[in-house]
């Protein structure tokens, strides 16, 4: 399959673990960094294009709250924002139908899933649960599997889990494959996003190999970070992962999605990630089916930039409704 063709939208069922493929993965860090550093100097979007791209970015957002002090009420507020992420007067000025602009998903801890499902009923916005011992992923495997099942039962249609980094660092690909396979089975119909916690994997080659094994095991998305590691989503890591996605698509015909998460706070950064997707994977990977941002504070900056586009004046945070 060419990455520029329409993507097969059926779920990636996974393929048998191919260790030879895993071992032949090559990533040259310096060259990857060089490419990553010129993505934003080779492409840019201005004026109407910038506004349109930012609106697209809104629709790719997994609006997230992962705080110890989350409450059902707080989550309901977030869900209200998810339904109407951008002020209607701004959308009107931009000539965009309000119903076209809603976020990709709302992402919460298990305890908040039912509140979110309730609050989003009828909106078509999926609820994503971080699960399986998030963010460390080190609780006993049966409990992690059980946690996934519980979140799915509570109505989560997307499950974000973090892999055991030790399997990667120890090159125990069979263990990683089996773990992710188990998670996938527990997900049932829910989509599985595997978080690599790339800040803890040491090398880009490990990032590429781990991405590949997760996809072979049936991941629907590969995701960079929990947001809790010291280093979160960086462009070189993202580039490495999307190239793994491309390699997997080319060899198996299955399209797997990508989700950078953690540290993406500005409208400008969101454009850079979109450019990365468009350049390396093509347009199909610029839609929520195959691309999401994990973000909690990004939306606020995008709203301000959109208002600036409409009014010509720089905006302020308090002019946009809180999540």
């Amino acid at each position, binding site marked *: 399959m060419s990455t520029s063709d329409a993507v097969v939208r059926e779920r990636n069922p996974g393929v048998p673990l191919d260790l030879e493929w895993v071992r032949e993965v090559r990533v040259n860090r*310096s060259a990857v960094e060089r*490419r990553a550093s010129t993505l934003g100097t080779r492409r840019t979007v*201005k004026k109407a294009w910038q506004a349109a791209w930012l609106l697209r970015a809104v629709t790719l957002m997994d609006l997230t709250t992962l705080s110890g002090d989350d409450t059902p009420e707080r989550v309901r507020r977030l869900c209200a924002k998810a339904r109407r992420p951008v002020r209607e007067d701004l959308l009107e000025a931009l000539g965009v139908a309000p119903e076209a602009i809603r976020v990709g998903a709302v992402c919460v801890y298990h305890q908040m899933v039912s509140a979110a499902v309730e609050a989003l009923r009828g909106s078509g916005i999926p609820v994503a649960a971080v699960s399986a011992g998030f963010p460390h992923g080190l609780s006993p495997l049966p409990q992690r599997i059980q946690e996934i099942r519980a979140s799915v039962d509570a109505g989560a249609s997307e499950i974000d889990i973090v892999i055991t980094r030790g399997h990667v660092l120890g090159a125990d690909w069979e263990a990683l494959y089996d773990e992710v396979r188990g998670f996938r089975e527990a997900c049932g119909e829910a989509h599985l996003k595997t978080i690599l916690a790339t800040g803890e994997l040491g090398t880009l*080659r490990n990032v590429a190999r781990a991405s590949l094994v997760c996809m072979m095991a049936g991941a629907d998305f590969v995701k960079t970070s929990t947001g809790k590691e010291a280093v979160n989503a960086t462009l070189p890591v993202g580039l490495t992962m999307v190239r793994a996605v491309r390699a997997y698509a080319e060899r198996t015909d299955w399209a797997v999605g990508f989700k950078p998460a953690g540290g993406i706070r500005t409208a400008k950064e969101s454009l850079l990630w979109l450019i990365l997707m468009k350049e390396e994977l093509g347009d199909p990977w610029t839609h929520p089916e195959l691309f999401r941002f994990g973000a909690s504070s990004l939306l606020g900056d995008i709203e301000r930039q959109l208002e600036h586009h409409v009014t010509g004046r720089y905006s302020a945070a308090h002019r946009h409704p809180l999540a």
Partner: protein
Amino acid sequence: MSKVAEIFRTLEYGPAPESAERAHEWLRSHGGALGHFIHGAFTPVEGRELSESLNPATGRPLARVIRGSAEDVDQAVASARSAQPGWWALGPHGRARHLYALARQVQRQGRLLAVLETLDNGKPLRESRDLDVPLVARHLYHHAGWAQLMEAELPGYRPLGVVGQIVPWNFPLLMLAWKVAPALAMGNTVVLKPAGFTSLTALLFAELAHEAGLPPGVLNVVCGDGALAGAALVAHPGVDKIAFTGSTEVGRSLREATAGSGKRLSLELGGKSPFIVFEDADQDSVVEGVVDAIWFNQGQVCCAGSRILAQEGIAEALERKLRARMETLRMGDPLDKTVDMGAIVAPVQLERIRALVEQGRAEGAQVWQPSWAVPGEGWFYPPTLCTGCAPAGTLAQVEIFGPVVAMMTFRTPAEAVELANDTRYGLAASIWSENINLALDVAPKVKAGTVWINCTNVFDAASGFGGYRESGFGREGGLEGLWEYVRRDDAAHGAKRASARVPRGRPVRKGAARGAGALPPVDRTAKLYVGGKQVRPDGDTCLPVLGPDGALVGEVGRGSRKDVRNAVEAARKAQAGWGARTAHNRAQILYYLAENLAARGEELTARLAVFSGDARDAAAEMDAAVSRLFSYAAWADKWDGRVHATPHRMVTLAMNEPLGVVGGVCPDERPLLGLVSLLAPLAATGNAAVLVPSRTAPLLATDLYQVLDTSDVPGGVVNLVTGLHDELVPTLAAHDDVDGIWYFGSAEGSAAVERASIGNLKRTWVSRGRTMDWMSADHAEGREFLREATQVKNIWIPYGE
């Protein structure tokens, strides 16, 4: 549907043009017509012939520029000459302050310079803004530092004087900086001739430099075409050096034009650089590497990676990836910040690219271009991938200077090296492999001045750039680049004109020198020494050798063209192995040679005395020859390269590599010491030498070959061809498989050697009729000889897992 709603759906890119207003404003401030910049001011254009400077992206005129004449060049050279003593007298710190000010000025005016460059040349603004202009500033900073350090780091060296510099149209401003920065740092003043297509940024730079306080006359810019202004500059007797970047064809004509003039010359010429991809490379990164290699500046790059050599197992996959990548390249208005590729500089270049690609197609190559259309206005050529190219085909051999890459395959590393080196050029190479053993094995084997491992087209002021073979000689950047702009202070060494006295061979009756009644010595037949064997000259004829009193002292073989040919073949065969030996091993052999030479000291001293008539002087020469061998044995493992501090996460290794096969024409003044003074540095650094012994006492050389034989010098490393210089030297100087030639002799002979060298643009080092003080170790041995015996290869090795 609103525009935003439509773009929201398609997620297309839109235009993002940089404003050209300030650049146009600058042109308007000069009335849209620019004169030369001489002695701190623009010259008037009234009544002068002007040519249009066109914007390649539109074909429309930007401004008119004066066409320089010989008188203009005169004026500029006179200005530079008048400014030079004052500029040198400023001292290192004074010049450093000026260069620092230029660097700061370039940074302050960076956007204006970038936009004007893009308007004039057609390259994408991304490149002029992110690569050209920052590198210009970097070169000025770096050389501000060399100006500051000159006395400490280049003691005993002086500027050359007035330097004429001719730069091409592909990097107008960057090539200016590469040339102007080291020239000014070392105390020279400059007359620069920009390319006819692209003069504008040089004029802007000169104006900005003047505003930054550069004294009048230190930097002059003369516009015009090569045939008139360029030729006048090259021919001008008031110019001490010509530095040229451009085509090999023009470089060759400059070598010819400057031959015998005493002008120093550095040439940075064309290339057909290999881009070698091994099966264990990171292929996605390779693809971006190809983008940087051949679609950077529309492929109008002398070091463009224009030949992809891919290992068979991955070639097909790589080709598929390349095609997919080519579809996503964007070409258009170079001022637009979303384009990868801009316009070709001029219609004549566009036509040349088209014609060469068509020729390649006719020869059977498959030509592939992406499905998108090039802009209708302006001069554009799409990125082009050619496969099925035979190494002998046009696309694999000819420098296209456009966005066209030829792809070929190889099976083994040895074959990759063979294909990589199957070119007359030797500017750059790129090697892609995740196996450092393989990459570092191949890097020294590729004949190229710059080798990039897992990267390509990376430049920095701290690293020298320049070619092997017909890609020219001389380096720009780093310490190695400074030598092009300085000379040794001769006053310190008392160099003098060589005497023209050369004993001429004439028929003499054998035995005339012998006293009556003495027992005749055992007859000896002096032969040539080729490939480690004593051989009779091809023509089987001899030349008499006379002592100072005219008496016959012996005969030497009269070598011919064919003997030179045989000697070069033997040297070529021996050189690779000799160069690959450890420096320690070469040192040992040179020490052993010294030991064996000393063992025959008495005999050789007596021989020397026959020629000089001075036994004490002969003994001193003998001792000096042994000492000289010791010196280069000592140097062999100490002529280290450097690790340049380039501002990337890299090591940049500047390696001193042998030239290869070097011809050496020995001086008449010191028959033994002169020969040893050439032989030893050449051999110590891994060259194989073809030496033409002195005319005065060639018998000494033939005595020497027995010493060579007993000293474990491998056959072919040193070859001695005696005979008439008039017969031998032209053949040696013109030989296309000789990489360099040293000539110690008359001014006329020096000129002839320089003229004859143009075939393969071999490096020449000629004495121009000045004698060395061979007995002085200070003068006639050491670093200068070692520099002339070697060329610097810079190997860029990024690291990080």
